[in-house]
């Protein structure tokens, strides 16, 4: 009796709901604290320092940093949400249930990454709304704005998922976000245009994948970009493809899950 097994949508929903419930249970940590920190960025960079900075590419500095700030939160929150979501059951041992359940790897991914991405997209939109209180905003390409938002959230949630599976300790869980992602994001043009960088650094910075994300995202707001939008989109998709390939390999081999 080898019937083609139907997808287990109920499991996807069950996992997704638990992940969302966690966000609302820890609303202070997952929603309010990013809003506060974003507001602080606006006060410090937008008003205090920003008032001394001229427009960049014809955009007021306060408005210029909005896409970068959203990306900053999107990246870090996607990674931390997804990595924690899969690391925690591994850590306490309750992962046994997930592994013994009739769910496919794809369903596990959709549920966990979907949950993490939803949370960070919501967060991004909250930050956008917060920013609108401080600076006048315009969004020239709303479709692409949403597209970059979703694509980035999904890609970095996948990346976080990989980190969560790879990590054996809480320290390792923090390591990649802290040592790699945060610096790359800060150096990725959140607060400046890469054209403002001196000579060689302009070239070096092109190796930073975050540059492409922020540039593309900023283009969807103001129609101005550091690198062409096609390249931005292409780089994002490449990174997404790399993450998918790694996840596929993890599941094929059972790496750090089914040993």
């Amino acid at each position, binding site marked *: *009796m080898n019937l083609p097994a139907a997808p287990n949508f109920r499991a996807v929903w069950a996992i997704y709901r638990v992940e969302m419930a966690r966000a609302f*249970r820890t609303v202070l940590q997952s929603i309010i604290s990013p809003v506060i920190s974003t507001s602080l960025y606006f006060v410090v960079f937008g008003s205090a320092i920003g008032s001394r900075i001229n427009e960049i590419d014809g955009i007021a500095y306060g408005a210029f940093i909005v896409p970068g700030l959203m990306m900053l939160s999107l990246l870090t929150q996607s990674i931390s949400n997804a990595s924690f979501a899969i690391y925690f059951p591994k850590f*306490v041992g309750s992962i046994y249930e997930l592994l*013994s*359940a009739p769910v496919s790897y794809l369903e596990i991914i959709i549920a966990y990454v979907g949950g993490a991405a939803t949370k960070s997209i919501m967060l991004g939109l909250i930050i956008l709304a917060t920013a609108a209180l401080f600076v006048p905003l315009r969004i020239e390409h709303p479709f692409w704005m949403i597209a970059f938002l979703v694509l980035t959230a999904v890609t970095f949630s996948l990346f976080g998922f990989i980190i969560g599976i790879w990590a054996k300790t809480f320290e390792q869980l923090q390591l990649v976000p802290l040592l790699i992602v945060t610096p790359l994001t800060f150096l990725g043009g959140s607060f400046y245009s890469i054209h403002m960088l001196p000579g060689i650094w302009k070239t070096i910075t092109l190796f930073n994948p975050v540059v492409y994300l922020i540039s593309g995202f900023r283009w969807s707001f103001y129609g101005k970009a550091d690198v062409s939008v096609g390249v931005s989109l292409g780089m994002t998709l490449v990174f997404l493809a790399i993450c998918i390939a790694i996840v596929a390999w993890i599941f094929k081999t059972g790496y750090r899950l089914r*040993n």
Partner: protein
Amino acid sequence: MSSIISISGVTKTYATGFKALKEINLDIERGEIFALLGPNGAGKTTLISIVCGIVNRSSGSVTVDGHDISRDYRAARSLIGLVPQELTIDAFETVWATVNYSRGLFGKAPNKDFVEKVLRDLSLWEKKDSKAITLSGGMKRRLMIAKALSHEPRVLFLDEPTAGVDVELRQDMWAMVRRLREDGVTIILTTHYIEEAEAMADRVGVINKGEIILVEDKAELMRKLGRKQMRLELRAPLAAIPDGLSRYALELSEGGNELTYTYDNQSDRPGVASLIRDLEAAGIQFRDLDTKNSSLEEIFVNLVRQEP
């Protein structure tokens, strides 16, 4: 009876090179209570984890009700409920949420009445809105069982179910296992509390160092391997066992007040009656006697010891 779980040629070698299982062949019959006995590190949990899909096997195949656990993993896994040894629950979830989550995870449609019944059966209903972290150890164990039963499994694995559990809960659990069996659920329990297997199991398997060294009907096993002992309390202490009784291989206690005769049901050693006649003939009088069967525990210890 047809087998519901069929394990053939299963081996497991961990990345470290440790061979946890060597060629396991085992069939679990539909509706039975099967006790898997073995010392710590024998491979009990590894074997269960393979059947449940938590650990990848190195070779061999497993079917659950005819469904291959790899090719047809959805069908196979949805039949199985697992209560692991460790108390591993998301501490911040409520009892109600976590049990319903388990049901959803296994693809079953929400059924509040059924989940309520499971919780009531396990005396957890009062605690349904409590977070797992606030429960006592025994309550957590009940919660693990509730999660495993939430999706109406046909096969239930209980890995060391009564480790660190108080007497009351242990009895509750035994009662629950019997009820499940009446409903046709197959139960596989691992334990190193032999009394548990002795009280509950239909069949017993003994695993040691990654090998199944014996699978036997419990009653049959006790009959075959069970030994009896007769202890005689003597009226007058004996300095040495008289030569005429040497064929009984009696043991004399330190003070010479007690004689112990060990015999098994199948051996050709002479029976108790002839010993008593011979004692009388030798003029040895005794005040009292008692006999006892060896327990499964003693059988088990002997089996495991025999292994090199």
